[in-house]
């Protein structure tokens, strides 16, 4: 092995792949059969980069040669950068050797488009096939579905991969036209739609015949870039919600645009990465998927942007004071989940515990409720309550004033609740 050459390739092709933020290695249920190597189930983050993102998979491009010239992409044709390409065997060796050392959960393989879609897709599939059939590798494999590749190749990809994804890149069609004139939205949606039908059909088969092969057991995901084009949060979340529903996506990733290229269509190189906005979008995404919220409750024409200062659940609560206070000891789970400061785990614990006895502030705190936020919105077994005449705006001010204290060097020894 030529160590220097491999090192160089790895540096180039990992660097080029890092703007794809998808990192999940969960959602599959691949077992280790016949004493092979690896399994895939709940997902593990094996390390974290200095920017705090999880490193779970060997995330690389097969090559950064690309026939397209998308403005937002470092690998675009017109960008003067070092180009490299892995061989099939090199990717297989890296994956197996990293996996055996417990560095990774598996492989996330994407690629620039060389020659055409089918050529590229065929090479990705060949790597996955080799790992599965020749190396008895049962770790996680995430492949990019290359827009425009044939149905046959997509189908084969689904047999070897745990997850497949096509990136929408821009939240709206107009945004895509502006920055990626060579691409069109339909080409991206077609494979998504095809795979969705296949996944549903194969899942049905699997119900009837246990031995039927798994087909992309961890489903599909996509990514949209945030802040490169002028879409507002309402447009972004509506797009996400539509794709969750129409294509049963497991995840939509929001990638804050990192200015790496000078182009008059893009934000300047000195623009900072919209990390807070990205964080708020993920919070909103969770509210949609797990907390029973609808898009128009979080963003709507009157409120098209997420509040960067506070989380979207608190934002909804202070706009809907008529829904509160919620009685912790009586309200149903769905309503408890809507209280700011109460998460999924706490909500379930509350519902379990209150069957035994009514809960007080003290107990709620121990259960894990963030009392500093929740106290404005709930009543429990206690005579002490927060003032009821507070407006949403006042509550926001109070909470912001308190949460700032988190960054003070000397924190007060005990936070008093009232």
């Amino acid at each position, binding site marked *: 092995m030529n160590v220097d050459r491999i090192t160089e390739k790895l540096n180039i092709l990992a660097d080029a792949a890092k703007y794809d933020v998808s990192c999940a290695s969960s959602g599959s249920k691949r077992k280790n059969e016949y004493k092979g190597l690896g*399994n895939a189930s709940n997902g*593990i983050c094996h390390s974290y*980069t200095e920017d705090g*993102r999880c490193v779970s998979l060997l995330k690389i491009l097969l090559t950064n040669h690309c026939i397209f010239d998308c403005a937002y992409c470092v690998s675009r044709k017109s960008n003067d950068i070092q180009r490299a390409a892995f061989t099939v065997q090199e990717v297989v060796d890296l994956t197996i050797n990293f996996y055996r050392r*417990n*560095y990774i959960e598996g492989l996330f393989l994407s690629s620039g488009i060389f020659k055409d879609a089918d050529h590229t897709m065929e090479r990705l599939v060949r790597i996955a096939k080799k790992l599965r059939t020749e190396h008895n590798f049962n770790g996680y494999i995430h492949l990019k579905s290359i827009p425009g590749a044939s149905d046959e190749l997509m189908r084969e990809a689904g047999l070897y991969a745990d997850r497949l994804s096509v990136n929408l890149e821009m939240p709206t069609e107009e945004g895509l036209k502006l920055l990626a004139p060579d691409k069109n939205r339909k080409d991206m949606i077609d494979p998504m739609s095809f795979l969705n039908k296949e996944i549903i059909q194969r899942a049905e088969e699997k119900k009837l015949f246990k031995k039927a092969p798994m087909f992309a057991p961890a489903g599909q995901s996509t990514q949209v870039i945030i802040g490169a084009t002028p879409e507002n949060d309402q447009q972004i979340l509506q797009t996400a919600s539509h794709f969750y529903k129409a294509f049963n996506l497991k995840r939509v990733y929001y990638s804050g645009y990192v200015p790496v290229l000078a182009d008059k269509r893009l934000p300047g190189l000195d623009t900072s990465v919209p990390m807070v906005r990205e964080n708020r979008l993920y919070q909103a995404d969770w509210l949609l998927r797990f907390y029973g919220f609808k898009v128009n409750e979080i963003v709507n024409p009157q409120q098209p942007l997420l509040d960067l200062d506070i989380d979207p659940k608190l934002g909804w609560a202070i706009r809907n004071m008529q829904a509160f206070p919620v009685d912790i000891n009586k309200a149903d789970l769905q309503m408890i989940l809507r209280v700011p400061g109460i998460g999924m785990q706490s909500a379930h614990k509350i519902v379990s515990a209150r069957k035994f*006895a009514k809960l007080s502030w003290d*107990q709620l705190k121990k259960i894990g409720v963030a009392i500093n936020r929740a106290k404005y919105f709930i009543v429990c077994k206690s005579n002490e309550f927060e003032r009821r005449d507070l407006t949403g705006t006042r509550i926001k001010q109070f909470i912001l004033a308190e949460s700032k204290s988190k960054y003070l060097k000397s924190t007060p020894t005990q936070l008093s609740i009232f």
Partner: protein
Amino acid sequence: MTRLIYDGTFEGLLTAIFEIYERKLNHVKMEKGEWYTSALFENLIKVNTDKVRASRVLKGLRQKLSAAGIQRLYIAHMAELENEDDIIVGFIRYAFDTPVNIEENYGNKYVMRISEIVGMMRREKHRMEAFVRFQKLKDDSFYAAVEPDFNVLPLLIKHFKSRYADQRWIIYDIKRSYGLYYNMHDTEFISLEFSAASHPGKVITAFCEDEGIYQHLWKNYFHSVNIPARKNTKLHLRHIPKRYWKHLTEKI
């Protein structure tokens, strides 16, 4: 207040429960350790670990708790936290003294505390599943040194055995001086004799040929995927606290 001295095993703890009910004790305090006869005038009981008594208590618990509930008690005991045995005893007495299953009554201080301790154990177990870094040795076996906050090695067997079924591996807890060894059929507990020259953390001399190459490639990969424009040290440290760094190839 009666102090019960026991041997620190889970069976011993269950035997202590038997004693508490047999002697109708009310206020008790559990202590691990040796029996000292000097404590003549104190209210002390030595618990002699007894399989029969322990299994009777366990049988009783099975009627009161779910299998998962009992498993959680066992895990909480493995945490070996100072003074937390009283919480486990409190939990078990509360379970026996209540007609219904109480394991989900998070308003109760014992149930809540056990839930916290189990949470700490699970987090540490999960961290080890993530942070173990195997190094391939000349004999084709894979070796990893760890120093977990809690004694979680026994909880790791299932995960590593099913994942790395086709390679021999050792995970060694340097803090507690014992390890797991998997020989492609079973796992066993082992303890290794390390000479001063070959400290368990440094087995470089025994590396297989390409071990250095893959460590080098992994470090390179780790640095390549970082996005400097998004630097967030606080978040980084929250995910990988510094005390784990010395066994992480990419952070050394």
